Structures are given as C-alpha cells and as structure tokens.
C-alpha cells in the first residue's frame, strides 16, 4: 500500500523539490525565483509528496485528500477461449 494525495481544489506549486527550496529562500523579485518552473494540479490529480511535506496546511485544511493505492500487481488476464 502506498500513500498518495490528490488535489481537492486547483493547486499551483514549484515543479521540483529544488524549486520549492528556492521559492522559500529567494525574494519573489529575484531572478532565481522568477526562473522557477511551476506545475499545476487540477481537481482529482495527484500532488507530489514534496509539496505535501513542504506545505502541510494543504492536508490540515483539506485542500488535498489522502488515498491509498494497492501496490499488488494486476491479476493476469485470462486468455479468451475459442468456442
């Protein structure tokens, strides 16, 4: 079982853990901040774990929802039987 989070509203966030770190460190008018690549999750889409870790208020205030994905491999499909 793995834990994932999906967006309950549209979310915009820095596109990588490094970009999140830069966003926290740099003033918004700096070139480094301006060069950050941003991503967007629409409702129902997964939100990366680093965003959840970096902004825990997303969970606290119900902007994202935790859900579990079964890691078990898919069952082999049966071959059709000729009649």
């Amino acid at each position, binding site marked *: 079982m793995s834990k994932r989070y999906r967006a309950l*509203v*549209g*979310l*915009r*966030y*820095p596109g990588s853990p490094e970009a*999140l770190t830069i*966003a*926290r460190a740099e003033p*918004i*008018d700096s070139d480094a901040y*301006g060069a950050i690549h941003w991503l967007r999750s629409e409702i129902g889409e997964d939100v990366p774990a680093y*965003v959840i870790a*970096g*902004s825990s*208020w*997303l969970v606290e*205030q119900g*902007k994202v929802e935790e859900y579990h994905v079964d890691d078990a491999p898919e069952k082999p499909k049966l071959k059709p039987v000729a009649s």
Partner: protein
Amino acid sequence: MTVRDSSSIGYLLTGPYNLTSLSTKLTIKSSDPLQETTPFGVSAAEFSKPGVKHTEISGHESWYDDTYYTTASEMVSLATGEHVLMLASQGNTAALKADCTGGLLYAAFETMFEVGGMHKAALELGVSGAFDEAWIVVPLASVSGDGNSEASYIDMGAAGGGTTGGNAYMSCTALTLSGRTNLIITVEDSADHIVWADHTVFTALTAVGAEKKIATDQTVNRYLAAKRVFTGAGGSPTATFTVAFKVNSPHA
C-alpha cells in the same frame, strides 16, 4: 491614521460600470440602528439592536456627458436584481481596503441643466445589507492573456486569515475575448505564498460583469492572489477587472 482626499479614490464601480471619472460627490451611510425596548416597571429607557444593518448612498453628483448618459441608462436597467458596488476609497492598489457590497438594488438618475454652467447629473443608489471593507487583491487594470498575481500577492498578516469564509467581489469593466470562450477569474489563497490553492471561483464571463461570491465556513489563508484563465486558445484576449476579498471574523 492616514487622511485621504478625493484623489485617493481609486475607482467607483457599479456592476461592471466605471463611474470614477464622472463622479464628484458620494455619501455612504451605514448604520446598525437601535430599537427602544423599555418595558413597564423601569425608570430608565432600554434599547436593543435588532441587528438589521442599513446602508444608504446619497448625494451622488456627476458630470453629464454622453458616456455618463449611456452608463447611467444601463445602470438604471440593472436595477432589477442585486448588483455589486465597489469603491476603492483609499486608492487603486493591492492590499488597500475597498468598500464593497453585493446588494445594490436600485439606481435612478437625473440630469440638471443651467444657463452658464456645465451639465450635471445625479445618481441615487439603494443598497440592501451591509458594506464590506474588503482587501483589494487585484487592482483595476487592463491585462492580457492568462496569468495570476501570485508574485504580487497580498499579505493580510498572521491574524488576517480566518476559518469562517468571506465575501469575494469581482468587477470586470472591459472584456475582449478575441475568439476565446470565456474568462474565469479565481481567488487563490496560500499559507506560505509558495503553494497556491483555488479558493473562490467566479462565474465564467462572456461579457463585462460583476459578481459577489459568498464563501462560507472555509479557511482563508493569510496570502491572497487571483488568477485569470481565458478558456480556449488563440487570439489576444484582454480584460480590465478588479478583485477584492473580505474575510469573515479574522483570527483574534
């Protein structure tokens, strides 16, 4: 305390109509009146507040010109429902306060002509309910294409956010879709001004318009911004709009 004068008036919007450059006088009176509730057997009068707030706008004078005439005529035809009124009394700048109401019910106007004087006009506005002193999230300005104001967010302070929602106001005074389907304006909030979440989404605009959205029982974080998305592709869409937000019961 900052004293302000008429040059500080950033905008006066009634619905999607901008009356800033034509208006010369406006009085807004808000009250939460008392009612006498003195019973028999007491010697001093007693009063209670019924809790119904009243707001009046009066003394509105303007210069009369053909633009005003058209605008005022359109406003009078607006008067069949409730409409948004937004007054940026401190200035047209993000993070200043604007007086906003969604309950503009009635508008009437008259024109005055006199020998040796410029033509003038007066507008009377009836408002239901209370005025909100709302934060200007995005000042009234012309923008083109999709975008957001996250880089110029407003910070309401640690106590500025709330947990019981708020009122979002939007007025779009000019819109050129340039082949796009519509314009969707969204208020965004954030706890850290780095990760942003949609908070309140206004109804998609296909023409100029104004709207008040009531967000109940929602957390409002201290940082606010707004984004605009023109649905569809191609063209060079532009819009002139402003967004303001009033937080219900900010954190103590």
